[in-house]
């Protein structure tokens, strides 16, 4: 048994009188695709915000490998290897697609001002490599020909894919996708399915996924956590979740 990549225990997030998340426990193993499902307002995005360092949980612990990262600032968590997409896409809209991918490589680039000001070979090489990596990822998500387009002008599905590419170029260990299939047509959803598997298989990344598209979730996920009103009501493989009476009653039964 591999030791888990991400361990979330006793997670609680309180907004004033509202308990948005309470008693959430789960682990994501290396190479696993783990989904969180639940009705709107269940607290899924809030879990993401806690894991990615945008909220400081009011209780509980989050570990990456064995290291506690609870309450660390978002940029530090990102550098540790957890990056995310947003439910409402957050691209740098007036920058081009390729520049979005360059900004994402900031932490890996030569940011020494001296070598940049005088365009030392070291700087040129770093920039060239960054461009090459950007080209690779644009190709991968099928946006190579849109490289110099402003991100805000891309079609919705393309923006979703660019956001995923922008995460992957940071070479994360855990990728957090918040409703990546929202607003996609069936064809695009199918491509997304293939893309996520490919990322997991070829790029050594575990995926934590929030998704409403049940067929996608059931097909792609290794394990699923079901949430309702901020609390966990079931966890397990797709088959286990599908046959869990509480889940059927609370969630799937409604469909």
């Amino acid at each position, binding site marked *: 048994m591999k030791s888990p990549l991400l361990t979330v225990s006793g997670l609680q997030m309180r907004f004033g009188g509202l308990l948005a998340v309470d008693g959430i426990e789960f682990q994501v193993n290396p190479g696993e695709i783990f989904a969180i499902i639940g009705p709107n307002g269940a607290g899924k995005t809030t879990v993401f915000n806690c894991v*990615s*360092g*945008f909220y400081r949980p009011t209780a509980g612990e989050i570990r990456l490998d064995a290291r506690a990262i609870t309450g660390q*600032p*978002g*940029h*530090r968590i*990102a*550098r540790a290897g957890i*990056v*995310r997409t*947003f439910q409402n896409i*957050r*691209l*740098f*809209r*007036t*920058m*081009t697609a*390729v*520049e979005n991918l*360059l*900004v*994402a*490589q*900031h*932490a890996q*680039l*030569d*940011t020494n*001002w001296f070598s*940049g*000001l005088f*365009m030392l070979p070291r*700087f040129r090489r770093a*920039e060239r490599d960054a*461009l090459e990596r*950007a*080209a690779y990822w*644009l190709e991968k998500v099928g946006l*190579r*020909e849109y*490289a*110099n387009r402003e991100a805000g002008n891309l079609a919705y599905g393309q923006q979703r894919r660019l956001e995923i590419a*922008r*995460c992957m170029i*940071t070479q994360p260990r855990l990728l957090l996708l918040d409703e990546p299939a929202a607003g996609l047509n069936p064809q695009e959803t199918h491509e997304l399915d293939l893309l996520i598997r490919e990322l997991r298989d070829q790029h050594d990344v575990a995926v934590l996924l929030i998704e409403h598209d049940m067929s996608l979730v059931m097909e792609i996920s290794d394990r699923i956590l079901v949430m309702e009103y901020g609390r966990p009501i079931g966890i397990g493989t797709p088959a286990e979740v599908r046959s869990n009476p509480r889940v059927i009653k609370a969630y799937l039964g409604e469909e």
Partner: protein
Amino acid sequence: MKSLKTACMAALLTAVLTLPLLGAHLVVNGLSTTLVVNLWPVGIAVLLVFVAQLLDLKARLGAITQALPTVSLSSASFSRHIRLWLAVVLVAALIFPFVASRGAVDVATYALTYVMLGLGLNIVVGFAGLLDLGYVAFYAVGAYSYALLSQYFGLSFWVCLPIGGLFAATFGILLGFPVLRLRGDYLAIVTLGFGEIIRLVLNNWDSLTHGPDGINGIARPTVFGLELNRRASPGGTTLHEFFGIPFDSLYAVIALYLIALLLVILTLFIINRLVRMPVGRAWEALREDEIACRSLGLNPTLIKLSAFALGACFAGLAGAFYASRLGTITPESFTFIESAVVLAIVVLGGMGSQIGVILAALLLTVLPELARSFSEYRMLIFGLVMVLMMIWRPQGLMPATRPRLELPTAEEAHQ
């Protein structure tokens, strides 16, 4: 509710921007010059902007604005010939002091100082999107650094110039580090306060700064070690002695102009490299979406700090130059009005647009000198222009376009 907040912010900004232009003017009365403050026009301007923002006049009059011609230098033919244009401008700027009148060269030097200040503040406000209302503080730090180091330790201008820049940047970091973690609005207020604090300290620290009397007899810059004065200091050599020509105070004026030009070119070089470097991209990304930046591992505080400190550094350099040019500085040279003028330059020029900022700096410094005779109207006109800008063209004369790093398309790459 949101529009009320925007309207309030716009009104505040208008007050800041129009205060030096509409609210205060110098009245020359025989030998004495007095600063007359008249707040009426400012009030009217603020009200105008507030109401316009509240009613969203901009959107309603959008059609009219669309019809207005826009100055756009991003046309293909312009960018293709940009090197040629730059060369022409540079040659003209180099020849200028040798053909122009002494007064004109003096005004040009003065204008170049503001070009530098404008470009520096443009990094902070235009690129990084941080509203700095106390920029003059760093200008003062640079000026006093040189004045004091030169007076107490006899250090030369060329040694003090980088020190002045470094001191100013250090102040920028010390001030920025705690404040830049906060939301944007706080920065404006804290920098506003900081500007005043620096001035008050300079005014009251008599033993060091001679208080309101300021510092006199600050050494002029030297040119390759040669002094520009009539008489050499002990052990020094003057320019005219060295070349065996009669003394002419015009030499100093020309030399100062060329030094200012050199500083502006240096500033432009650095900024133009920076916007093509990771940090330049990060500034733009941060302005666009701070949360996304953080989610990708960029540390927003550090990136903002780099812009803030760099802007401060340029103000410090400009300040050291200012002190050496005038030979005398007092705390009153560094009032809030000065910050407002530089901010007006950045806003008028188009935040983030370097050519725009240069033109605006020239416009706001040279025009008043040319039009001294109708100074009453000039203030009115400037104020009006500012107000109209706030309402219709908040992006400035020339909206900024950062150079984009392009990825060649697959076919191009194969060729």
